[in-house]
């Protein structure tokens, strides 16, 4: 017997999209959905990152672990990461960099011969297969080279510094990048920022507002730390210019109360509407990050659905399992 369907059809409206930045609205769903998406983007979308470093020569000032840690944190282009295997699941190899399904090999070989300090940067990392995986800034330079119209200025981009060398110092190593997720280590997290906010709904009580003098209005408008309200220079009415700038700080409400006009403005958070901001590290495009996250979320749900019918599920969830299945208890 089928229960009542809670199925909803969330809507997504993209507001702004760049390679590493995405702002979109997610409507007609609730916080659990939005938060699940956020969590997956942060911690479960796979990327590639350097995981194993074999150091041959290191006469730099930084020690081996230090350099290995720094290498790990360099974001690598991971567009193919979704289709790659985790090295622990890869039967063909043990993730030694030889296998194209699970790992990519890098080499670094730098020696300073001049009297100037030499910066070893991510551009010095040589990938065994640059098409699959290379440091993000190298990739950005490569794409910029293809596209003559891009605003990319290579002189400004100096790469991600790994270590600085003085005359006679040398760094030679072999590194292997593997697929992983942010839950295991932050270096695999593709997201720099993933956050959302509830869309605020702001209603100004126009009648009450009219009782204020212009001076009062101005001071009320200025009480908000962010620029949410403005006084229309023509009508001298208070208007909402940017509701999303509102940080739920209650300052305007407190101000209104202090002015003796409670209820001057009514601000509510829309429970079913979210504004997402996603910034990517560059490992994958922000838009791809969201798509991958949805894909992973779906896989997870599939896994739950598949396990719903099994015996273990009953053991694990008991009555809850039956409830999940929608059958009457």
């Amino acid at each position, binding site marked *: 017997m089928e229960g009542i369907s809670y199925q909803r059809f969330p809507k997504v409206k993209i507001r702004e999209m760049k390679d590493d930045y995405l702002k979109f609205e997610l409507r007609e769903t609730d*916080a*659990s959905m*939005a*938060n*699940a998406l*956020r*969590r997956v983007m*942060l*911690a479960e979308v796979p990327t590639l990152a350097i995981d194993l470093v074999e*150091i041959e020569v*290191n006469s730099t*000032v930084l*020690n*081996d*672990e*230090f350099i290995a*840690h720094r290498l790990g*944190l360099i974001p690598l282009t991971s567009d193919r990461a979704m289709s790659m295997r985790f090295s622990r699941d890869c039967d063909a190899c043990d993730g030694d960099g030889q296998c194209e399904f699970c790992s990519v090999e890098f080499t670094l070989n730098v020696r300073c011969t001049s009297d100037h300090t030499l910066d070893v940067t991510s551009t010095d990392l040589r990938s065994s297969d640059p098409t699959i995986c290379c440091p993000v800034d190298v990739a950005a330079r490569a794409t910029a080279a293809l596209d003559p119209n891009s605003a990319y200025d290579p002189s400004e981009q100096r790469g991600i510094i790994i270590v600085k060398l003085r005359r006679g110092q040398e760094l030679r190593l072999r590194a292997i990048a593997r697929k992983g997720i*942010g*839950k295991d*280590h*932050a*270096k695999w*997290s593709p997201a*720099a*920022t*993933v*956050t*959302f*906010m*509830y869309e605020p709904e702001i209603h100004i009580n126009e009648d009450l507002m009219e009782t204020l003098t212009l001076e009062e209005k101005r001071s009320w408008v200025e009480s908000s*730390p*962010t620029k949410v309200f403005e006084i229309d220079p023509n009508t001298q009415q208070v208007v909402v210019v940017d509701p999303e*700038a509102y*940080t*739920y*700080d209650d*300052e305007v409400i407190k101000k209104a109360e202090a002015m003796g006009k409670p209820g001057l403005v009514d601000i509510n*958070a829309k429970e079913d509407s979210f504004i997402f*901001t996603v*910034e990517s590290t560059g490992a994958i495009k922000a838009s791809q990050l969201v798509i991958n996250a949805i894909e992973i979320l779906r896989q997870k749900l599939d896994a739950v659905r598949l396990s719903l019918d099994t015996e273990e599920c009953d053991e694990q969830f008991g009555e809850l399992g039956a409830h999940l299945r929608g059958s009457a208890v």
Partner: protein
Amino acid sequence: MAVREDDDTSKRIPSPMSMKSLAAPVKSAVDKYQLLPEFLKVRGLVKQHLDSFNYFINCEIKKIIHAKDNERIVSDINPKIYLKFLDIYVESPSVEEDHIREPLIPQRCRLSDTTYAAPVKVDIEYTRGNPIQTEIKKGHVIANMPIMLRSCRCVLYGMDDDELARLGECPLDPGGYFIVKGTEKVLMIQEQLSKNRIIIDTDKKGRVSASVTSSTHERKSKTVIVMEKERIYLQLNQFTKLIPIMVIMKAMGMESDQEVVQMVGRDPRYSGLLLPSIQECASERIYTQYQALEFLEKKVVKSRFTNQKVSPMTILDDVFLANVPVHEGDFYPKCIYVGVMLRRMLEAILNADTIDDKDYVGNKRLELSGQLISLLFEDLFKTMSSAAKKSIDEALTKASRSSSMDISLHLRKDWITHGLERAISTGNWDVKRFKMNRKGMTQVVSRLSFIAALGHMTRIQPQFEKSRKVSGPRALQPSQWGMLCPCDTPEGEACGLVKNLALMTHVTTDEEESPLITLCYSLGVEDMSLLSTEELHSLNSYLVMFNGLILGKHRQPQRFANGMRKLRRAGKIGEFVSVFVNEKQRCVYLASDGGRVCRPLVIADKGVSRIKEHHMKELRDGARVFDDFLREGLIEYLDVNEENNALIALYEGEADSNTTHIEIEPFTILGVCAGLIPYPHHNQSPRNTYQCAMGKQAMGNIAYNQLCRMDTLLYLLVYPQRPLLTTKSIELVGYDKLGAGQNATVAVMSYSGYDIEDAIVMNKSSLDRGFGRCIVMKKVSAVKQAYDRIIMPQMSSGKGGLDSHMQILDTDGIASPGEIVRPHDILINKQSATVSRDQLISHKVLPDSAYKFTPVKHKGTEGETTVVDRVALFTDKDQNMVIKFIIRHTRRPEVGDKFSSRHGQKGVCGTIVQQEDLPFSERGICPDLIMNPHGFPSRMTIGKMIELLGGKAGVSCGRFHYGSAFGEPSGHADRVEVISETLVRHGFSYSGKDFLYSGISGCPLQAYIFMGPIYYQKLKHMVLDKMHARARGPRMMLTRQPTEGRSRDGGLRLGEMERDCLIAYGASMLIFERLMISSDPFQAQVCRKCGLLGYYHDKLKTGFCSTCKSGENVSTMKLPYACKLLFQELHAMNIVPRLQLTEH
């Protein structure tokens, strides 16, 4: 009231003054902060040590040589044979290698465990040969003296940063310590009561006493005059009993009682108090000097060595008030001195307020390295001289003197060299001459963090014992203001006794006395010896005391004092000479002795600062240095006593017409450690004290040369940061360059329950990215003895590969850098010869069988992967090869590691949480660390809250914010209002609170969360070094009980109290199991008949009682081995414990 006349006339006429103040130039606050960096540039942070040591090297050492007793060594046998020291000088450190002398570099000493020492050379005039002829020899080395780093003889003296870096030295390192046998040692500043000063005090029995601790080059003594049963006595170690003071006076030639009464003052209150003493003397029938001396003769203590009595006259001359000189038997100055002592004492009896405060900083002297070393040097020099004399005499007595006699060869340099080296390395100061026997004078410089090392140099050790439960010396003294840090003191037993110098404090060194004394006389001091006793306390003049000596009297003390001060400001006399008019005691105190604490202050004329804006501009432009200010009389040093004559305004604006001085910067009352705290004036005082202790445990950077050093233990932070909220002290000290902490985004909220009791919740992603990551470096060193050899790693027998523990070895048999070391891995593949030394010499090459394997293994905990960081080889003084390894371990924070903010708020990491579970703001900010708000109400660390606000404003606007102590009025601390405005400008709430969403549910949190960056320190206490558990493990040989302590993999003791609990609960089986089965069970054979222990007879296969000679009545029982041991030990003492067994 003739004296008053000389005071500032302006004080007395108020009405024209108000007119004057209208006409006075407009006061504008001049920013005097710039003086501080200049001050520190010339004085440095450890200038007190350097000045003191430099003074010793340049002046004191020469005085020692030229002292009457030291200058000549004359043979007793032939007085014509002598040696005379003409001059002495200390060169800069050098080392002789293959007959080539080259400069010694401190870093080399640190690495190769040698002493940073310089040759001390003398020019001597001596006799030689037969017939005797005098010769002069220059540059004879008599010692190798350890040299203080950055002192005027150090090779680093006057070097700039580049040159220092080339020598492997950190430019920020302050110096001020010695390097002895490779370890850095500081000579702690010693705090003492003033020498040669009259101190009026009450002793344990409540008696009023006047005491003087005399200290001259020849002798140290303590003279006490005490009032007992209305009578006044002298207490001196050389006399068996208390001596009536009148007897002493008579013995010194003051036979007339009238004179004594006159000296005390004719006021009947004083003379009345003196009457019983006079009566007592009369009742003893002592009227003349002769009688008095006769009386004293009987009371003299016999000398311990010679068993002879010294004549009382010599005691009075040499021991009694030794600081007052006696010229040609003239005891008058001593009589006067006693008179002043008596007067002060009687005054104290009449008015308890005049009793001196022993804890008053003005009554204290700080003994610094120069003084301490000079004490030791003089003693060693004397020993060397007497040894030389002895050996000369010995050589002279020998009949055959074939070779011509050369005295200079008898001066052995090892005496002083070893003596100094031993004293500095052990910290034991033994000077037999003065019966001095002090321990713990030196300490190893704490290199836990940069601040710890700096703080170590400014620490002051007390001389009194720590156990006394008195609050007086521990309490904060108002006179400490500006001299000693009010915050920096340890907790616990040394609380309040161990102190630290404030930022601007200077400690004086001795200054030449005689020119100053002459100057005093020419300024109108009437010589005491020309005055009668009657005039001693005459009302129309003040007594003038110079370094505790009575110079004479002056009729216009204020004028005299002003004159002296004017001369000082003009630079005609030393800048550290202090002039203090004590109106209560009607005395002018002049002091030029060493060890006084003083600090610079801006001079103000009637409240107007002498420093004007143009002076500061010149300073900023580099046209002026700190010393110019001093020379031109804009700034002067005041010591604690002279501060009493000054009215010091905190800020220029607060000065009024009576103000004489203005503070340079108020935050300089704090020391180095307390200077790191932002907004300390907003915190509860003990919190600042806690932070002072914790700042020394914080990990960070030690020095620029930290990776070239070979310390036994080194904690480094992987990514140290500069605090977002700094103070001016931080910049002055260099903490911004060698920080010890990281700026963490802290959310003050409750989360997960793993944050109770100050625990903090950490963000796993932050840790992944390197927050709190640290490097621990440990040193392992080994010596290759002459009969050792180090060989290539061998193939293990059978398998054909290398032994698993030998894999990190290089072909030379020593582990190579960069290799990962696991526990029990071999670091040096060393073998030692088993044969004796003789065989070693006879056999050139020993067979392999003569060697046994003695490898150096790495001891470490299982599962810890450490790396060989560096390997250093050098030759020690015995020409053996020493191998040092630095083993490195990188650690990321884990649950239980200790962290602390800069406000005495420490806490352990309670749990580590995934980033997605942590709350986030709609900007995407997520905390690195969550702190429970319960930490605030009881601690009252408002400073931490302001730090958070300021830090948040700092990151948003991109400017480092300041939080110097008391800095708001002078603009060295940002005000909360301004910070709030900055926050609002960048879209934050003025309160620093943010609207956060739960990372777990995505719903908004119920409250606004106070969130922002706070500088967090990682402290050296880490679980990895402390965690310990054991199931089975090693046992002690004797008792067969488990060993004790983590280092020996010991068991966890079930102690008496735990046992009591189990007994009370009735868990008898558990006690049995814990105390015997799990500890030291033993099967004993006990004879039921005699009750003694037997043994198991192997042939009979039964127990056997050796007392009864039978195995019939023997039973087996279990008992703790320790119990059996006790029985046996009792047996050995002829006590027979018998066991009575019953069936059970």
